[in-house]
């Protein structure tokens, strides 16, 4: 699911549940999710992430 699709669905769901105050907050969460998905360790799901116990 793209972030745009997720955001549209989340906003519609918030509206449906009578929580319009959530809508601007969801924009903030979407920005954080964009940042997370753009992080370089998420470039390749086949690549292992270093673990703290391999130190």
């Amino acid at each position: 699911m793209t972030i745009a699709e997720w955001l549209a669905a989340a906003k519609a769901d918030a509206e449906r549940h009578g929580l319009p105050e959530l809508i601007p907050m969801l924009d903030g969460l979407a920005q954080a999710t964009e940042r997370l998905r753009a992080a370089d360790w998420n470039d390749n799901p086949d690549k292992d992430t270093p673990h703290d116990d391999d130190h």
Partner: protein
Amino acid sequence: MTTITEIAGIVSSGRIKSEKLTEDCLSKIAELNPKLNAFITVTADEALQQARHADQEIAAGRWLGSLHGIPISLKDLIDQQGVRTTAGSLVRRDHIADADAVVTKRLRDAGAVFVGKTNLHEFAFGTTTEDSGFGLARNPHDPSRSPGGSSGGSAIAVATGMSLGTVGTDTGGSIRIPAAACGIVGLKPEWGHISASGVVPLSRQLDHVGPLAASVADAWLLYNVMQPESEQTGDSLDAAPLKGLKLGRFSGYLADRLDADVERGVNQTIERLQQRGATVVDVKLPHADDMAAIYLHLVFGDAAEYHARTLMSRPQDYTTPVRLRLEMARYVLAEDYIRALRGKALIAHEVDRALDGVNALVLPSLAIPAPPIGAVTVPVKGGPDAVRSLMLRCTQPFNLSGHPAISLPCGKTGDGLPIGLQLVGHKGRTPALVQAALAAEAAIRS
């Protein structure tokens, strides 16, 4: 501030009675709590009963150690048998704990006296202690400002002598932030070392239980008793020699959005440590600027799971800001939660790398002084920044990584607000971190 370390010997000799110490704390609570709102529940009768029992035991030659007869408090998400655990929320206003949390039991067995349960940001889901079902708490240094959070009431209690020590929890900085904001010491142990059983969770993988105290030595005293029995050592530690102590200092994300007074205070402290023999080297955390996104997705995912039922059944019993953030948390997708878990492992690895070859990392505990109550943003270096993200900025990396970290006071801003210095240690070496903090504290006070 009276320290436990100073007074324990006097209590053991019977020259000061636990009952008198406890009455003094209860008097402070009666005097200051109406203004500062540090306590949700005061257990005066039980505390006095415990204190009298402690006095009898000590008089009979059965002194249990430095915490025997010492009045302390518990953040009100830690269970104390027979007392309500509200977690700062009306959702749990009628919840009576049927047993002690593991840490409560260990402190009780050490003879500590419990004077009450302290106020917090509702369900520990915030950094200011403004959103509590039992009213906001105020900073004792300036009541128009936040005491920090989420363990805000705990920090106020120690800073004002309402209790001589306290126990808090830290998911993104909730021990170290209020300790810095109120001018006391806060120790976030290594993740998993102190039991969180009997403690209302925010995020089980990021929650840490630990002490807030008037001095580093007092924090160690409390920590030592809260540890598993097999690991408990002596009541005191010697300060590390500053000569030869090697500290790692961050640049970039963890240093670039600091209030000018905080930056100056921390830099002056580091210079003082260098003058006394410590060496400082530059270290990096390459993914530091991804931490807020990682943290958010993990805490949201975990909190959404814990609160799912009560958000459906009792939404009106949450404060509005916390309810809305929890409602928003329910939209985090599993795939993003997993991405954040991978990021968490990476941050832990990078903190280990930063610690390679140094004894501890050094940075501010809190990027800004205690913010005004109600502030959503504060100006830092010219531009407004969100209070919540600024407050979490310097502490949350070490919740993600699980490394032990301690905050200690290192001076004040021009407005008289406390500044906190943070030291971060190696996993498995918390005593060495505390020894470094003892040395730093002595240098700051000299």
